[in-house]
């Protein structure tokens, strides 16, 4: 059974079909990348997968639990790091992890120890008592990841986890994710940086125009090319015509 099975997902905003019959199967124990150009429907898909946006049609199943008919069962299994959504940023880092942990139903003492461990693992221990609104963008990503991990989920869904993260923290996050996958967890992450996906993921899906254009293991999708080259082929690269923006050339 795949950790996540998405079947014929559809979501339209007005006339625009942001997600248009998207199907996806993420094998358990894989590090799965979701790549696509801006506006391809990645974030919309992940919002529907995590129960934050109601799909017009289609189904989402997490380890046998349907997200929209058995939300409590499905949501207990997933940890989420959305992109572009606020967190309760007038709490300190420690308070935020504790808040999420207690809402997840963890015991107070367990919540306390896990918050401690996550804060030091992510290098936030010194800033644990600082309000999250005073954190940098990278620190906010890391505290979001801590909140996604605190209840030891079976499936991690991360939207652009490396955006605004500096190389040191990025490496730290990579190590955490690799350890998580090697111990049996499943990660679904979105990115539009091909190098990250190529270095980190074992499988991926290329999404454009709200549909999966290619999916499978890294080698299946690459077909001997570089991932960037293959990606540009799949989504349709555009070349700048030589005449356009001529006024920009200063000489």
């Amino acid at each position: 059974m795949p950790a996540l099975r998405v079947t014929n997902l559809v979501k339209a905003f007005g006339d625009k079909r942001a997600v248009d019959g998207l199907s996806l199967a993420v094998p358990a124990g894989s590090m799965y990348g979701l790549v696509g150009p801006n506006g391809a429907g990645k974030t919309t898909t992940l919002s529907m997968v995590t129960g934050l946006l109601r799909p017009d049609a289609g189904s989402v199943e997490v380890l046998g639990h349907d997200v929209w008919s058995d939300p409590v069962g499905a949501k207990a299994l997933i940890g989420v790091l959305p992109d572009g959504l606020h967190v309760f940023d007038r709490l300190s880092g420690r308070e935020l992890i504790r808040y999420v942990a207690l809402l997840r139903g963890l015991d107070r003492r367990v919540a306390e120890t896990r918050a401690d461990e996550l804060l030091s693992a992510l290098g936030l221990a010194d800033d644990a008592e600082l309000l999250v609104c005073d954190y940098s963008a990278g620190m906010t990503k890391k505290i979001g990841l801590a909140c996604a991990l605190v209840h030891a989920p079976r499936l991690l869904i991360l939207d652009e986890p490396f955006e605004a993260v500096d190389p040191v923290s990025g490496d730290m996050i990579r190590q955490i994710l690799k350890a998580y996958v090697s111990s049996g967890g499943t990660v679904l992450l979105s990115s539009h940086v091909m190098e990250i996906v190529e270095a980190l993921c074992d499988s991926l899906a290329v999404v454009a125009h709200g549909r999966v254009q290619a999916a499978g293991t890294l080698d299946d999708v690459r077909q001997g090319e570089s991932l960037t080259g293959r990606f540009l082929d799949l989504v349709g690269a555009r070349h700048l015509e030589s005449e356009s923006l001529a006024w920009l050339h200063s000489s």
Partner: protein
Amino acid sequence: MVALLVGLRFRLLRRSLAGGGRHRAALIAVAVISFLFTAPVCLVMAVLGGTDVAFARAVTVILGFSLMLAWIWLPLFLTGTDDALAASRFALLPVSAARLIPGLYVAGLLGLGSLLTALIGIATVVGWARSGPVLVAALVGATLAVVTATLIPHVLTSAFSGALGSRRFRDITGLAVVGFAVGFTILMQAASTAISRTDGTASVVAALDHTANVLSWTPFGAAWALPADVARGDAAAALGHLVVAVATITVLVAGWWLALRRALTTPLDVPDIVGRVTRDSVIDRWLSGSATAVIAGRLLRYYRRDPRRLLSVFSMMLAPILVGVSVAGVTAAGGRAGGISLLLVAPLLGMLLGPTLAFDISYDDSALWTHITTSVKGWEDRLGRLLGFSTIALPIVALVLFMGVAVTGSGGLVPFGAATIAVTGTALGVGSHLGSIIQVPVPPPGSNPFGKGSGGGPLSVVVSLLTIVLVLVVSAPALAVAALSFSSVWAVYAAVPVAIVTAVATIAWGVVTGGRRLDRRWPEVLREVTYKR
């Protein structure tokens, strides 16, 4: 530049009118209600021509002065300024403050408030059309007054916009303005009452005349006194008032220019390290680890740390206190005991708890996803917010009630205590319910608490009025028993129990039905509270 900004404002207005049906309905409702409030004022101003000069002067100055005050504090909890034209948005463009000011001012005139103020100004001119010179004076005075009034929100918002720098500074200044508005209004009331007392006059007209005398020499009253000065042939007073009125406008424009210049050069919110919070606070030690308790605990923290919520509590307290003190002041000036109106402050405040609680979910903005993804039950969200908010709000209501009783004597304790319990409880229940149905746009987290998002003002007014009507309907039986306790003995014993039952039942209803509604519609609610850029 003027044409550009006015065009932009027109497009924004048109879009807000063309937008969702609910918003347009709210906008129209607010327009109708404001016209209903303004029409009598215009009528009074316009028929002053037939009355004697002293009386006409008193009415013009006092009403005009109140209009200016309204421009200060109405934006605090009504429409606010549309932050589409906020100064910091122009920071990246090569424009100077001096070039922006005319355009921003004219664009700002395209609004309901300016229209109504202009109507009142015109009505004043009509009322003072006694003779040629007086008419001219009225025209000059009304123009100066309308310009002053419409400048006030620009100065306030650009001075306190996010551009001013650190968040901590903003938190403090936000509260300072509210404090200033409250203090200033109460001070004026107290002063007018005191003046009328020292003269030993019982006549209302004399009291009004004295109040007008004082107010006419304040920045916000001077322009309104001009026509009366000319009508009396008092050239010195006319000149004095003219100087004060023109100086007021000069100071406002200068202040706006300075604030705007600073906003344009330091547009970015420089993050400042506010310091650390204590690791284990009392809140955690006292509350259990259940979802309801944890949410209540967060609310307790947020009412201290989130300036938008702090401001909402302050503006919630503003209206009833103003009403109570004003009515008490006026009746006292008229030589009658006005204490009873102080007792009304507590139930009025209790009623406003409803809208404030209903708006709370909107302040979470998209951070609400945390509740959805952790499978928080709707009722846990509702009850948690209610408990957290009540912990802050109920002591204030109780304090106001006991202050009123202390001033007026213990006779009012049972009827007004019962009324307060019934109204406060039903307001909390109705607020819990409505908050799950209608989410009002509020400023996004970390932004200027005076902005109200885009066009959230009208909807928030409608929700507030809806809450108040529902609260009155639901608590009517309990209020009736409370009123009877003035005269009949059984009601004295029945009033408080009936009030408590009404309160508890409404809260239970609001939490359960509101919670069910959230359970069904979490994703839609999340979309609704997410700030639309």
